[in-house]
């Protein structure tokens, strides 16, 4: 791994991330020949692609191309019928969702799944991995609870900073169910970042988000990209994909149609045929 030493203090704890947003040529995620059938319907039919570290990779395709199912297969929400998913050098095919998340590969959902009867802060505080207080006896027994509270105080600060970063700190004490659609998307992102991930799969993060918020969210994504996070993004808004994702993977009928820079995708006849139509020409 080539370390671009542009910053003085090398982030030792985050050795899997690079210091800049430059792609290093290392694929952090490799998807090979994934397959999934629902009865007679073949949802994912041998899709394969790679995501390089530090990129914001777009995953596009017409409705029913199998994007969301591919996400589910990668993150273990559904089990693949065939194929392989390799994350950070480890085969994670068939692992349970929580195991995959704990390896640093986390996702958001197409329809924001906020925990509505929990406050925004509770939502965010849920996410950090390996909390001491998650073991019952530590939380309950006198003498151990002090340590739990200490860690909680640290996480609380981190949670507030994350909420500020996503500009929803004014909603901290609100029930998540009371948030607007866009705010829920921000909350989901905030929650995902509290897990301290390496790579984040975003399933239509901008659907239902107003333009101002959209700008904000995209800024955040690029800011985080420059810190070394990797993103894989399913999105329908072509302007967003063309301006913010590189490279772009195009899926069609459960297969990978092509992969390339936005420019190449824009000009590819097959892609236009499959789904873009004349939309990109504007």
């Amino acid at each position: 791994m080539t370390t671009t030493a542009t910053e003085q203090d090398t982030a030792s704890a985050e050795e899997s991330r690079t210091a800049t947003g430059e792609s290093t040529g290392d694929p952090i995620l490799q998807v090979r020949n994934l397959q999934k059938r629902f009865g007679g319907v073949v949802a994912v039919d041998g899709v394969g692609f790679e995501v390089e570290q530090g990129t914001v990779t777009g995953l596009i395709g017409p409705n029913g191309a199998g994007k969301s199912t591919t996400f589910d297969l990668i993150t273990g929400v559904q089990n693949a019928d065939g194929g392989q998913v390799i994350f950070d050098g480890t085969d994670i095919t068939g692992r349970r969702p929580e195991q995959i998340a704990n390896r640093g590969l986390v996702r958001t959902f197409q329809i924001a799944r906020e925990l509505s009867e929990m406050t925004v802060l509770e939502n965010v505080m849920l996410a950090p991995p390996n909390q001491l207080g998650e073991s019952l006896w530590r939380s309950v027994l006198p003498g151990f609870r002090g340590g739990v509270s200490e860690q909680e105080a640290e996480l609380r600060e981190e949670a507030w900073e994350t909420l500020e970063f996503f500009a929803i700190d004014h909603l901290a004490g609100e029930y998540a169910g009371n948030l607007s659609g866009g705010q829920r998307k921000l909350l989901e992102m905030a929650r995902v970042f509290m897990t301290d991930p390496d790579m984040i799969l975003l399933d239509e993060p901008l659907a239902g988000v107003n333009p101002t918020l959209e700008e904000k969210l995209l800024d955040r994504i690029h800011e985080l990209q420059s810190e070394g996070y990797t993103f894989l993004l399913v999105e329908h808004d072509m302007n967003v994909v063309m301006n913010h994702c590189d490279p772009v993977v195009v899926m069609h009928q459960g297969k990978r149609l092509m992969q390339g820079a936005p420019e190449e995708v824009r000009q590819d006849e097959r892609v236009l045929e499959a789904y873009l139509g004349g939309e990109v020409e504007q």
Partner: protein
Amino acid sequence: MSDGDAQADDTTPGGDTEQSVRDRIWAVASASDIRLIAVTLLAIYAIFLFLGIVGGLDANGLYSSLERVTFFAAVYALVVLALNLQWGYAGLFNIGIAGFMAIGLYSMHILTVQIGLAYPIGALGAVLITSLFGALVALPALRLRADYLAIVTLAFAEIVRSILGSQRFAEFTFAGFDIGFGGATGPDGTLPDPVKFFLYKHPYSLRPEPNAFGEFYFGLFDLFIIDDSTAEGILYALFLSLFVGLYYFLLVRTGNSPFGRVLKAIREDETVAKALGKDTRKFKITAFALGSALMGLAAILWYTKRGGVTPTNFEPEVTFFVFVALIIGGAGSNTGSVIGGIVFGALLFRGPVFIERIINQRLEAEADPTTIFDAFGGIDPFIVYTTDNLSALRVVLLGVVLVILIQRRPEGLLGKRKEIASSIDLEDRTGGEN
């Protein structure tokens, strides 16, 4: 932001002109959870005292009725708290409560009466056994959605009840011990009453003689013209209240912690909890086992006062009573659970019996009609019928209360409450960059 106004916000609706007495009482009572519980209990005592005095009970009768009320309020609070952990927090729909209570109590009987272990050791063993059964039943819950778990638990409770009541298992040998469930009438032998150990030298002699503490304690109550058996009952009620306190402490700590946070997340959306890296299976089993163990212990504390054990104590009815109590108080809140248990146990469960008793006592006093007119015209036959069947009608009353509650206040008496699942105040951000 101060946390004071955050609390006020969600309890009192605006409308400064109509700051009624009720609102002000509510404001005082809801200032702290413990106070809220205390105010509820005192209000219920006041109701019973009033009815008792109107009904012409003597001092001993009054104390005895308060003792009974406390007993049922406490035992229901215990079971409701346990259910709140499973259903209120983790969303695990357990409608086999009666089964777990039965396992706890029967294990207690076998370990103490039949095998001869001391009370605390027997209780500990029984609680462990119940938690093992809880973990076992929770296993299918790992894969099943809420309503299927409900079916599994209901079936489990019924299986437990029929095994316990079956003649086949009335007596058998297990690991060298001759034990048994005693069939339909339950096993022979009276369970030890823990309170008697504090009061008597030899609790199980025919006429137990008080020990030093017993002498003092009964002497104290003699001053208030309270007889020994009522005094003993009062001590038992206090003993139960102590356990309500322990349960409450344990469960508030469990709920207000990262552990409780994961349970809530499982209730809200398990897929999210998993996607955030939580091994939800572990949390579900732990919560279910702990809840079941607490139900078992509650049953032990409930029935060691009565002594006898029969399978009829554990019909599905018990489970539904506990659910009604939790819905009254508000699922998801430990304070609500205690209040739900108190309101249910005292007013709905004990209340009708109490009213029936004092009315009958009144009627007996006035009874012996001298003329045919007295016999038929004096009291409306409908009232006679109603008072004679009050305790049977209590199930009807329950239904009515439940319907009104679900329509008017589905979130429970206390309304929506923020009991934040954290060991610290999350909104009070100290140590940040000020």
